[in-house]
């Protein structure tokens, strides 16, 4: 850590990990509800558990992105943060608002929550991933603006590197496209159309800028490869990501009442979306192979390489599997979608946040790297979580293929619930893979408490 204000990243990272644990607890509960339908009913119905699961994911990733920005922007711009106090204040506001929202989901009837929080003034709730009450949405905008103000002011007074510019572009894009969450027309087709301007343009657009910038930052640090080289490739990769991803939005416009031409535009451009992910993998391995130093933090290198590979598999390959309109006609809204969603979010965004945490956390705790023993535990957690996620994805894919076959392709299609019974074996296996994932997560948290002789921080 070169600048004292970087330390505001620490609470953000801790909160991120804490909420991650919460997300997985609810994930396990839902995994069980898939096979034991009345588990926790009526206290926590599936729709509440799912809302908590997905909203916690989004919130902890946002905590991760913000923490990453607070950590890397001062170092990149070579100046102290504009206002560490504002950053800490926003941390508490965001944490309390987030926690209040989750508690609201759990302890207040959703309809009552909607009435209490002004949903009748401006109805924005009840749409997938955007279930947050109006007040929370406004809170997110305020926190995001204060955060962007803080980061932008820091950048204005310091060095403007490519990594910091790309990171900032991504974060600004994130805030701007979130504004579409306030647009909820009565026309369902329009509602769905612009809903994707938040969801797709986040995860297959501006978030990729954030991810690439974070990865590039860690790669510069752990490999010692010339900044010039890494930044040029950063530009090329994000160009490819947006060139394919922007029109790739069309792969969500196949069957929601939009004109038929989206089937062609969406299929063609989203078929190219794996290319930037592949480029990112090649780039990460290339930089590590050309490394000019042996960084003591081996775990961070592992997370970084894992990000490349798993993002390519989850977002690239599993996305491509069902992105072509003739295939998607059968797979749309099936367990195949769920399989892709799990591995893509894990591979691209969970791993990139864990990468920066793995790199920055020891430095924030005053050491160059954790002890050998702590790193071994951390790497174990990587393999446990990653391998179990691969299995979760494979089991869901198998469930999805069977579901599509029985319910949609067959000459004598079966009703939904009957099909669900047929594929419950795969749901059980998914649940067990999820348990292993949770074990991996516990291992991960434990790695922070493993004692041992850590590498001392040598200030250059």
């Amino acid at each position: 850590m070169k600048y004292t204000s970087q330390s505001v990243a620490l609470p953000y990272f801790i909160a991120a990990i804490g909420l991650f644990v919460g997300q997985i607890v609810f994930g396990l509960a839902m995994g069980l509800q898939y096979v034991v339908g009345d588990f926790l009913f009526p206290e926590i119905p599936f729709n509440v558990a799912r809302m908590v699961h997905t909203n916690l994911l989004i919130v902890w990733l946002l905590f991760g992105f913000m923490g990453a920005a607070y950590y890397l922007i001062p170092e990149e711009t070579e100046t102290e943060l504009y206002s560490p106090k504002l950053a800490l204040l926003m941390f508490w506001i965001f944490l309390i608002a987030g926690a209040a929202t989750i508690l609201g989901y759990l302890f207040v009837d959703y309809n009552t929550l909607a009435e209490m929080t002004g949903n009748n003034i401006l109805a924005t709730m009840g749409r997938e991933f955007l279930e947050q009450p109006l007040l929370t949405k406004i809170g997110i905008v305020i926190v995001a603006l204060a955060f962007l103000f803080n980061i932008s002011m820091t950048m204005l007074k310091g060095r403007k590197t490519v990594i910091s510019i790309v990171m900032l572009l991504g974060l600004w894009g994130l805030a701007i496209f979130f504004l579409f969450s306030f647009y909820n027309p009565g026309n369902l087709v329009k509602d769905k159309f612009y809903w994707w301007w938040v969801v797709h343009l986040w995860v297959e657009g501006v978030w990729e800028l954030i991810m690439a910038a974070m990865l590039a930052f860690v790669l510069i640090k752990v490999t010692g490869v010339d900044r010039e080289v890494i930044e040029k490739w950063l530009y090329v990769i994000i160009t490819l990501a947006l060139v394919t991803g922007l029109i790739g939005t069309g792969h969500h416009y196949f069957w929601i009442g939009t004109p038929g031409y989206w089937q062609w535009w969406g299929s063609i451009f989203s078929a190219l979306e794996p290319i930037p992910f592949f480029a990112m993998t090649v780039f990460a391995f290339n930089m590590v192979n050309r490394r000019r130093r042996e960084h003591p933090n081996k775990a961070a290198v592992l997370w970084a390489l894992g990000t490349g590979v798993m993002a390519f598999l989850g977002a690239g390959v599993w996305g491509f599997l069902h992105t072509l309109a003739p295939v998607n006609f059968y797979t749309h809204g099936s367990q195949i979608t769920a399989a892709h969603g799990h591995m893509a979010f894990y591979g691209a965004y969970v791993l990139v946040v864990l990468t920066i945490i793995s790199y920055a956390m020891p430095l924030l705790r005053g050491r160059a790297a954790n002890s050998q023993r702590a790193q071994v535990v951390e790497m174990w957690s990587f393999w446990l979580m990653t391998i179990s996620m691969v299995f979760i994805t494979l089991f869901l894919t198998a469930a999805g293929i069977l579901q599509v076959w029985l319910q949609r392709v067959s000459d004598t299609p079966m009703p939904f619930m009957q099909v669900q019974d047929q594929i419950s074996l795969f749901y059980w296996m998914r649940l067990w893979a999820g348990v292993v994932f949770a074990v991996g997560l516990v291992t991960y948290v434990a790695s922070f408490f493993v004692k041992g002789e850590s590498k001392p921080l040598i200030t250059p």
Partner: protein
Amino acid sequence: MARNSGPETTARRLPGDLAIWFFILAELLAFGVFFVVYAFTRANHVELFNAEQLTLDRTSGAINTVLLLTSSFFVVRAVQVAEAGFSRRAAPWLAAAFACGAGFVVVKIFEYAEKIGAGISLSSSTFYMFYLSLTFFHFMHVILGLVIIAAMWNGARTGRYGPGNMNGIETGAAYWHMVDLVWLILFPLIYVMR
């Protein structure tokens, strides 16, 4: 930046910036997939495609081909002149290239106006969907290319280019030739071949 500093004049060298070549490859891939998808979709609707293809104006398509080819030629001349060390003399060539490209845009707008006037849209039929999508996608590339040529013209006029500084002009030229290249397939595929 060891640019052309070696004594060997025969060394193989990629003209323009590597970054534009990645972009060109991505574009060629997108166009290529689009073309092949068109062709295979046509195979399932031969009558429809053959009938509606006749409503296209082949002559303006051919004129546009000539305009793009001529424009490309002018850009080559501009690059040659700049390479010989006469940056300012490259400017008129680039202006001529721009004029040809603008001519393409005008012809295309007339073509679109005629089709839109006839009530044809992206949703009219599979053929018109492809015709409008492919030509409009290409059309936007021409517009972007014109912006780039204008920037190159400005650079040439201020004497920026020369044997020691060819990166900008070669990069823009490579992009413009790519716009030409895809049209060379697009024209016979959509306007002529039945």
